[in-house]
């Protein structure tokens, strides 16, 4: 049984309310930092913990905090990125819904470390009911003196505001989020300047994911060094994984990043294996934007070691044989699933969510979707597969924000590992059009116009 840090108390009745949360030891980290630690010491503790951003990129949080510019007389902001829109990822929702005070507590500690007097939670618009839960928690924290003016007599003022997005995936990208927070169209900004120098209203800003900020609480409670002992290598602490797809037990799991991928999929403690006696075909381990891996590469790394559920092991060998930890959206596919159809679904998503600012993403994502649609419905040509490969190559790395990469990687990995399925669709057009998958009705069944 892995150690639980974030969801340890999530099952306790009434933990959503302040009274129960406090009774169970909540807000101890706030007391600790206000009584005994300077803001720099908090940052140092986070650095020692080795915590990596849990939003997907995995950048060291302590280092990100230390980049924050601190000019005199200029306010600083902390923004909590709760715009969880990556297909397959729903871990932050779980955390915010069931134990909201953990996030509020983490936000207060982090705001203190960064000197942010106004902190925002930018939340996905579709999470409407969670907004109420968070606002209730903020009101309770206010009423009990954890927020507001001169918190616990320290002279530190802090207020937390919840801002709803309008349901655009791109607003999960930190600079687009900042634009949206400022009330503008959610287009990504060109970096540099980075938010640490010019963020919200051109002031120094740190944007962190929900899980990252919640993890600050156990880091302070345990101490950074103790936290770093959990996990392995540079993947310290615990990680929330949202598992879905063809598994017996979909849900949000907290793992300590030492268990193997095989154990995660097949053990009863976690996913519980593949239902209906089916075999595993492939897995997207970090949310829809990370490369898909077939079974033969999923359990073993490029070096032949057992693949572990952590940042380094999942990425081992680069994209040729590895993938990414990403946000932890673990999508499992059994032998009946069609990789081409799933790739089309993802391509459609990224095409729809492209902000349209830069030409490779705006035009390329739509082009990929159309070609994939042709292939999926038996109207593709063999040359289309190579064309797809070339298009994704021209998009990757050439766009303003990582959405271009997120659109390109799934297509690249699908072709790299499942080219034979693409070829099957081309060679068997009639069968391709007649297939009818039980759960894959979300693909548009309309006939494809061919120019």
């Amino acid at each position, binding site marked *: 049984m892995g150690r639980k840090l974030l969801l340890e108390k999530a099952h306790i009745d009434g933990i959503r309310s302040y009274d129960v949360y406090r009774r169970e030891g909540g807000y101890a980290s706030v007391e600790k930092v206000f009584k005994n630690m300077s803001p720099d010491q908090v940052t140092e503790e986070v650095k020692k913990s080795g915590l990596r951003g849990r939003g997907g990129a995995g950048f060291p949080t302590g280092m990100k905090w230390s980049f924050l510019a601190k000019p005199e007389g200029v306010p600083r902001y902390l923004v909590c990125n709760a715009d969880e829109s990556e297909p397959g990822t729903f871990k932050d929702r779980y955390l915010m819904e069931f134990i909201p005070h953990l996030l509020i507590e983490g936000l207060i500690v982090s705001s203190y470390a960064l000197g942010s007097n106004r902190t925002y939670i930018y939340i996905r618009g579709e999470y409407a009911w969670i907004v109420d839960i968070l606002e209730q928690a903020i009101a309770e924290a206010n009423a009990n003196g954890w927020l507001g003016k001169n918190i616990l007599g320290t002279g530190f003022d802090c207020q937390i505001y919840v801002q709803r997005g309008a349901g*655009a995936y*791109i607003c999960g990208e930190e600079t687009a989020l900042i634009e949206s927070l400022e009330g503008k*169209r959610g287009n990504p900004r*060109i970096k*540099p300047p980075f938010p640490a120098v010019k963020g919200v209203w051109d002031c120094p800003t740190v944007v962190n994911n929900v899980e990252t900020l919640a993890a600050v609480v156990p880091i302070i409670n345990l101490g950074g060094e103790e936290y770093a002992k959990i996990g392995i290598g540079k993947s310290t602490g615990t990680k929330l994984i949202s598992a879905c797809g063809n598994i017996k037990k979909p849900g949000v799991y907290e793992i300590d990043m030492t268990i193997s991928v095989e154990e995660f999929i097949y053990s009863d403690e976690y996913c519980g294996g593949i239902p209906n006696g089916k075999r595993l075909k492939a897995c997207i381990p970090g949310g829809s934007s990370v490369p898909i891996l077939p079974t033969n590469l999923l359990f073993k790394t490029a070096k032949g070691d057992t693949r572990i559920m952590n940042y380094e092991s999942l990425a081992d060998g680069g994209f040729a044989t590895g993938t990414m930890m990403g946000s932890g959206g673990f999508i499992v596919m059994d032998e009946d699933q069609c990789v081409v159809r799933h790739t089309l679904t993802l391509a459609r998503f990224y*095409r*729809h*969510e*492209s*902000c*349209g*600012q*830069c*030409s*490779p993403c*705006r*035009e*390329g*994502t*739509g*082009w990929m979707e*159309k070609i994939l649609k042709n292939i999926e419905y038996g109207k593709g040509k063999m040359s289309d597969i190579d*064309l797809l490969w070339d298009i994704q*190559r*021209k*998009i990757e*790395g*050439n*766009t*303003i924000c990582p959405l271009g990469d997120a659109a390109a990687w799934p297509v690249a990995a699908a072709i790299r590992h499942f080219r034979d399925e693409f070829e099957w669709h081309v060679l068997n057009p009639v069968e391709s059009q007649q297939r009818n998958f039980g759960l894959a009705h979300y693909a548009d069944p309309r006939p494809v*116009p*061919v*120019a």
Partner: protein
Amino acid sequence: MAEEKKLFKVTIDNITIEVEPGTSILNAARMIGGDVAPPAMCYYSKLKGSGGKCRTCLVEVAAGSTADPRPMPKLVASCRTNVMDGMVVKNITSERVIDARNGVVEFLLLNHPLDCPICDQAGECHLQDLSYDHGKEGTRYEFNRRTFNKHDLGPYIQLHMTRCILCYRCVFTADQLTNKRVHGVLDRGDHAEIATYIEKSLDNDFIGNVIDVCPVGALTDKTFRFKNRVWFLKPVDAHRDCPKCSGKVTLWNRGDEVYRVTARKDQWGEVEDWICNECRFEKKQTSDWVIEGPTKVSRQSVISQGHYVGLKRPKETITEVLEGRKPRLLMDIHDVSQVNKPNVELSKIPGPAHSDDFKK
């Protein structure tokens, strides 16, 4: 004694120059000039915040700086990346850059109709130039092109959204030059479009400048559209005493007739001084202007066809060979009226004229 300003040394395509801190790679490359300067479809030096969107100006940074000589992993937008001391940049010497730029051109042309023969921007189109440099003769795109409903943008400006490449220049222009921006980008992704709020017209005094900044033929001048091709016109610099703007313009003449008025542009195709709508749309008489002289046009530009400055014509030899006789006599053409019978009206002949028609 004034303190000496520290300059940054930057090497672009093996040419080293010194520039002031804060200079972008693109502007440093423009100081060198020629092919070293990356193309730019969305960047416009006069518009704050422009650039970084079209990705045509991507370059490879082979060394970040003297202090940190590591190369940048991704190609960067040269218009929005500032130089560092000791930076080494590869533009046309980088295969990665050329490959990426070819890709960008293909993406830009995906939904941009290649109707140069009828488009009003032909001859002045940056995308046309870019596709000649980096495009391919064919397209790999087999699907229906994106099309849009036509928008009426008032009496002076025509928006042909189908040709738009969403460079945002016109939005920046309206935002920064006028006090009432009523257009912007609606929707997102490949269905994003430039549009006005419930089709309000763009009626600000300086809104005509959106025509000049448009790199393709999406925004055109209604008072000039399809009246002539730019290479048949003779651009001359002129000015007038205008209370609203600098009044410095380029007149596009044919004979004494002023076909259109535009702002003067520099060698990178960027407006030097913004002009007002009155100068642009309403002053179409030569007498309205003080003519300064022919506009300098790059010899490579199609606009230079027919009117080079300081053109030296080759020596005429036929008349000399014919000992003073006119060439027309050699070809036995005595009179134009004798070639075609005046009683044959070509326009009334069904189909192409045939010799039999003249024998009737």
